[in-house]
């Protein structure tokens, strides 16, 4: 589900997009990365994760990766996801939007 007010990604989607910035990951890899990014505060369950992934694919922000690791090193049931150009753009825009908010907050809270 996208952020209705901005047409940008929702919080969970944004976190997933961020987790894919440093390369493709499978579902559980994304879950762990999000957990690390948020200092363990956000633990996505499989339902939430794949619900968000479905939306991200529909938006064209991520895609399923064709490249698979060696099957002997990995479980073939795992699916890998990669950030698309559109996705990268969405992350940038959302980050800028958040930066503006942070700047505003800084000006008024800590000035």
């Amino acid at each position, binding site marked *: 589900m996208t952020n209705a007010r901005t047409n940008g990604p929702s919080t969970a989607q944004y976190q997933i997009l961020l987790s894919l910035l440093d390369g493709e990951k499978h579902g559980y890899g994304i879950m762990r990365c999000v957990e690390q990014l948020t200092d363990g505060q956000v633990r996505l369950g499989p339902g939430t994760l*794949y619900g968000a992934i479905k939306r991200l694919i529909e938006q064209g922000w991520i895609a399923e990766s064709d490249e698979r690791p060696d099957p002997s090193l990995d479980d073939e049931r795992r699916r890998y996801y990669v950030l698309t150009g559109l996705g990268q753009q969405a992350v940038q825009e959302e980050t800028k939007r958040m930066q503006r908010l942070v700047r505003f907050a800084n000006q008024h809270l800590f000035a």
Partner: protein
Amino acid sequence: MNSNRNRCPNWLMSLYRLCLRIYPASFREEFAVAMEQAFADRYVDFMRNKKTGTNLQFAFSMLRDTGESVCRQHWQSAESAGFTRLRFLVLLALLAPVLIFHESVIRNTVDGMVYAKNFNLEFIRAEALSKEHEVYRTELALELRKSSDPITIQAANLLERNNNWAIESYPSGEALREMNVRIARAVVAEPLQYSWFAKFDRVSSSEAANLNSMLWSIENFPELKRCNDIGKLKGKDVSCNATWAWMLHNRKYEEIMLYDNYVQPSSKEILHALENNRYTQLQNQYIAINKLDACNFADERRFYNNIICPERK
């Protein structure tokens, strides 16, 4: 060894697979396998990092996640099928009365309507139909209300007030209605019987006696009339009361109904005793149960010898 210990147990995996079936088919087809894998990975990680964690804790956390995402996915698939929020709101508005009056009100009202041929909506509305057991009061009161006799109306009013005929443990709907009809038959018997009934249905004895006396005086109430006839036949023999009281005590409403129709209100057991010459044993039993000074089956014996036996011959 370690990896085996940390592997997701089969029962948990089966449970999760079962949960996955709740998702919309299209979503399930696309992601179910990957979700299973993520679930298993999550479990291993959970058990490794959280030393105090239990399978159940993990299952609950996953259940919450599944519940939320299932709702979301179904909503999204409904949306993509053209089910907009506006349509949802319209549907909700149409269903609101049903949702609000669901269960107690609707069901009891319908029961009342089905039972009472001369259904009086105003009367039903005047009732607080929030408890299942009020079906009884409704149907009985409706019967009484058919009359123009002031005593009958008074009894109906009394029934309206006596709302604590606790039969919460009884089944609802049609079964409850049937049960209530049986109870109604028992209610219109005699004071001692009714005092037992009152005791077990939490109606005060004075209310019970009052109601009972009123019911006795109502000639056009069919059940009462029938019971009156039975009463005339069997007189005031205490053994009848004791038997009925015992049956009420043991909630043997079936027998009451059955033997009521048989014009023999003293139950199957008395009949059985009469047939087998076991009066003394039965008398002692009832005396003990009901703490009676004495007990005899004079009326029953007379009835059995004069009516039942000749009929059978």
